[in-house]
């Protein structure tokens, strides 16, 4: 298996000379192709900073992020934008669908931006819509959909471009438990059937239990790592996650 993502000694500082805060403190890990990885941590643990640095929205103070072997900190301007649209797919907590456009147009736009040939667009949308079970709502506007539907449309938009890596930021954060379950199952399907590599940031243990491996961050450092064993049920994996989060302490207790 090839390594899709490598984070090497990532460091990120905020503030000025007087008071420096380390959001990321010598963090290293890697993600392999076809993996579904979860990143967990309390508020302020640095997981959002990490995601921002991987997604090229922010840059590291020190260290390296390699995506498919390429150092993304070396990219600037147009190349960076191109890289983002070609290699990455995003799923956000707030869906980030364009309210003025239908589901189909929202998904289609991601392909248009990637300069996909117009005649191939419809087939691609139909395919991904079928996988995510949103064929019936393609003509609807976001205001006419439920939260779960919106998030699945957002997921469809993220994967339709066949990105090297899908970044999901608290994808179930704005969903009820039923919609969360259905979205996570959709993501699992994508991971399994389309061999999509997914990196998901969450502080919800239930959502995390769908991942194959979980990295726990505390104060910008790697705190623990859990891997779902072959044949281990999701329920058992969930219990192990709960154990770690209770050790993580602090606000993480609220999750249970």
């Amino acid at each position: 298996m090839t390594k899709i993502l490598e984070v090497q000694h990532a460091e990120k500082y905020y503030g000025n000379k007087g008071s420096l805060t380390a959001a990321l403190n010598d963090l290293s890990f890697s993600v392999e192709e076809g993996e579904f990885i979860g990143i967990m941590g309390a508020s302020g643990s640095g997981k959002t900073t990490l995601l921002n640095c991987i997604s090229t929205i922010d840059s590291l103070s020190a260290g390296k992020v390699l995506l498919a072997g390429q150092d993304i900190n070396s990219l600037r301007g147009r190349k960076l934008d191109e890289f983002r649209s070609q290699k990455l797919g995003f799923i956000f907590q707030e869906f980030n669908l364009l309210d003025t456009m239908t589901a189909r147009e929202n998904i289609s736009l991601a392909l248009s931006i990637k300069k996909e040939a117009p005649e191939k667009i419809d087939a691609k949308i139909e395919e991904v819509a079928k996988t995510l079970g949103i064929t019936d709502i393609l003509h609807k506007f976001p205001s006419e959909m439920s939260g779960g539907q919106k998030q699945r449309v957002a997921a469809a938009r993220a994967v339709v471009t066949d990105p090297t890596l899908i970044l999901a930021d608290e994808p179930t954060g704005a969903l009820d438990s039923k919609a969360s379950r259905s979205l996570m199952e959709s993501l699992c399907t994508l991971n399994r059937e389309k061999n999509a590599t997914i990196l998901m940031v969450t502080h919800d243990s239930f959502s995390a239990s769908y991942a194959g491996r979980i990295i726990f961050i505390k104060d910008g450092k790697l705190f623990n790592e859990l891997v779902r064993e072959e044949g281990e049920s999701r329920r058992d994996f969930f219990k192990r996650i709960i154990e770690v989060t209770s050790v993580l302490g602090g606000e993480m207790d609220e999750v249970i």
Partner: protein
Amino acid sequence: MKSFNIALKNIRKSHNDYTVYFFTLIIGVAIFYMFNAIGTQGAMTRVAASGNSLISVLVTVIRFVSVLVAMVLGLLIIYANNFLIKRRKKEFGIYMLLGMSKQVVSTILVWETCIIGFISLLAGLLLGIFGGQFLSILVTRMFEMDVSSYRFEISFKAILMTVISFACIFLVVLVFNVLVVSKKNLIDLIGARKKNEKAALKNPVLSVLLFIISAVLLGIALVRVGIYGMEVHRTEFIIHILIGLVGTFTLFGSMAGFLQKLAEHLGAFYKKGLCSFVIRQFTGNINTSAVSFALITLILFLALCFFSTGFSIRTYLNKRLANATPVDVTIETEGDKPVTDLLAERGIDSAEFFDECLDLPIYQSPRITISTTLGSVLDKAKEQFPLARWNTPENVMTLSDYNQIERMFGRKELSLKENEYAVISSFEMLNTFTNSALEQNNPLEMNSVTLTPGYEYALDEFLLMSETNISLGVVIVPDSVAADPENNFSVSGRFLAGNYSATSSDERYHSDSVLKESLGDSLNMFFDEEGAPHIPVTLATANSVRDSSVGTSVIVVFLVLYIGIVFVIACAAIIALKVLTDSLDSAPRFEILRRIGADEAMRGRALLIQVLLNFLLPLSIAGIYTAFALRFIRDALSAFGALNMISGISTTLVIMLLLYGGYFLTTCFGCNKIIMNSSVH
């Protein structure tokens, strides 16, 4: 004082929205001042000093128009202000939530309005005072006047008028603003969000249908009025105007649905880059503000018509003027006494007074009347001019006499055979008939000979100078015909054309008044036995023709500029404000685009196209309307002669480019700031 500081801070903070508001206010004030100060500007006093009453007419007309302009500007300011305040309701709600009383919030708003009003009034007046100087230099250049009399002028009367008018407008704005805060409950203010984007017309099939119907009806109305306007019956004409009005509204009401369907059917195009996004944004815009778009289009249409027609008329007048004053003075008298004798009786020695002068007889013959010169087309002419007196004898001149005039006026001499005649006339409306009579070889039966036309059209020339250069015909006959006693020619009047021996401008004006005084008694109008007016002596000097022509030009140009500019500013400002506030709503959408990988160039282009479409859509539709309307106007004003619309249109384009383009650029920068700034983090 605390609320004053908050007010100051608020203005600085929301300068993005306020740039356009300020811009508009300042231009509004400046224009209002400039035009009201016109009567006292140097260039104008020069014209007024020549005893031309047209300047006082101009001042009066501008004062009346100013009332209308003040109302338009007032409405614009109130609209713009409400627009800005609406967007800030939530902010006021937060002030109150934090424990500020309604009085204090109102006080903040009062301060804000006062600061804005004060600054814009001050800046506007300054701009107006300097702009006024520029304007008068422009006028001096435009009408080739003496620049030496130019002075820097400030009209305190105009300042007072401007201050009072705008103080009233701001007072109304103040009341509106305070009402917004004091009448609303906290929950309304906090919950104030933009209205849901509701389609004006939801059913796409219905919108497509309505759009096509509107477009077709508008097309028919435009073609009927624009191309066949002169033949269209009055009732039909009014119906077409109504269709134009209503059709504009339905066109915009259904346009969003139509464009969306059209774009989706284009398939590949819709799926390229951010096309689908831009189209959705734009159709959303049209949908939520179809009424504003329609109104803006109609007002722009009016402004464009004003500009083009006004400037065309000016060019026409100026061009006419150049050929209209070939000599210093022309005099026409009744009776057979030479004009020089008439002057000698009044103590003016023509040999001394004039450098060169011609004093020639004008003949009449019972055989040459308006009826006989029109011949077979008389019946048609009677339909057009039912009140004309057709048996009036035409003025006749001999060929050799007329050629003397031609030489003096610097025109080409005529040549006629012994049995030919020619007609000179610069009255275009009658000329269409005269020309067809001449073309049909209309004969003039004299006792000794039958004359046929030597030219197959009426020559566009004149004897007496006049401002509009419209003079009724003179028939030119060979000398032998007039000399033959068989033909009963009698001398009915005399015509004098002369150049003063005086050389300086002042002396020439003096010579004018000497002539006027000496001929004074006979310059009054008399009535003959039948009650028809006739003038025993007509005096036309180059100076008076030039000055009154300049005066007319000035009135036309200033009214057109005044009304036109205010209309254009009103439209452009409303579009700019709408686009700017819309861009606040669409900032999050652009952020999403950035996140899903649209690069900066792509987003910048999408934004530019969006702003451009908002500005261009009403302008282009108004432009189409104008193109047809101008055809109609040209036909309707054909009495003036062939108006060359190109000059008017090109001047209009320059003005529109400056005004409309200025607003467009300001809006672009504003939007760019709002949207690109918000996507930095």
